[in-house]
């Protein structure tokens, strides 16, 4: 897709969230480009979709946990990706094999398995287009 080939580092923004057991936690904005200190849920605006480029998931708990990244629009939950993370380790999600698309009106959440602690960082960007990935 031509638009995606134009995506550069300056289009990326960082979504972050801390795992809280099986409670769904909203991913919020870490910063965009040179800007810091801004946070908030990033809802995909109309006429755009959000793509996840890459990220990391770190488990600070003492046992293996399962982490799910999901999209949520206030009503509907759409699981996008689930991964097992061993105790004390970090899973790197590289752009080579990681591509998720989030529809307009949705924002991202993370859910862990029981007792999960840790954190998630994702690099995301907006692409213009009205497609409905899910």
């Amino acid at each position, binding site marked *: 897709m031509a*638009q995606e080939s*134009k*995506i*550069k580092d*300056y*289009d990326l*923004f960082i979504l972050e969230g801390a795992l809280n057991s099986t409670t769904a936690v909203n991913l919020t*904005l870490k910063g*965009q*480009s*040179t*800007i810091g200190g*801004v946070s*908030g849920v*990033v*809802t*995909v*605006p*109309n*006429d*755009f979709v959000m793509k996840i480029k890459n990220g990391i998931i770190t488990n600070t708990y003492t046992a293996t946990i399962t982490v799910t990244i999901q999209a949520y629009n206030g009503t509907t939950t759409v699981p996008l990706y689930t991964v097992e993370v061993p105790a004390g380790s970090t899973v790197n999600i590289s752009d080579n094999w990681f591509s998720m698309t989030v529809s307009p009106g949705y924002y991202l959440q993370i859910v862990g398995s029981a007792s999960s602690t840790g954190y998630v960082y994702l690099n995301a*960007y*907006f692409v*213009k287009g009205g497609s409905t990935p899910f």
Partner: protein
Amino acid sequence: MADLLKENYILGLSVSDTEYVFWRISRTNSFSLIYNFYTEQNLAPLSAVNTNMNGYSPYYTQVTSFPIPQSFINTNVTDMFKITNANEIWQIFVGVSPSYLRVVPIQPSSSAPIYHLDQSINPLKTFMEIGYDGFMSPFDDPSDISEAYILSGLNIGFVLQNPVSIPISPVFNFIINRMVVEPITDPATAKAIIDGRIPAHLVSVSSIRQDIKSSINWSNYPNATVFNIIEKTGKVIGGR
């Protein structure tokens, strides 16, 4: 990719529906300039559009409002946005970052809407098809849609709009083609250009396609000659 004019090309600037001023380009000097609104102007990030898309946070600026920082004035730093010579015209292209930033060219010195054609266009807040964004004119490959021309004493206005749900910090990548020009004063040459016998690049001043003759004082540009193109007869009338 931006199509830069070169020496000996002919540039025709339309100033109204029937009037052109022609210039032969004698020297050019092109470069790119990255302009970060955050570092240069302390521009706060453009706020996120609210989630129900009820409003933009438009920010208005002009090219001559892109000065070098005050602390550099009187130092040996060139202000690339300052045109002082009447025989210079700048051809500029704008690459937009981040890609979803929307840039709407408007009449300079006015925050009123957009593209003064037969009617002013007041876009619906969710209507994003006005102007261009970084998908249409990428940061490192500015496209023809962002092409604009500036003469000394004139200006180009932009409105920046953030259509997405996060604050963004605009950065422009200007490709600036500084051109030293000589006015064409011969009506026969002007006629040949209009007839297509002499190739020329025909454009409008600024990025606004409209009748702007009233806002240009041609006596500021020595020997610039306004040619009246009478379409029915193909006749070209020289002189101001």
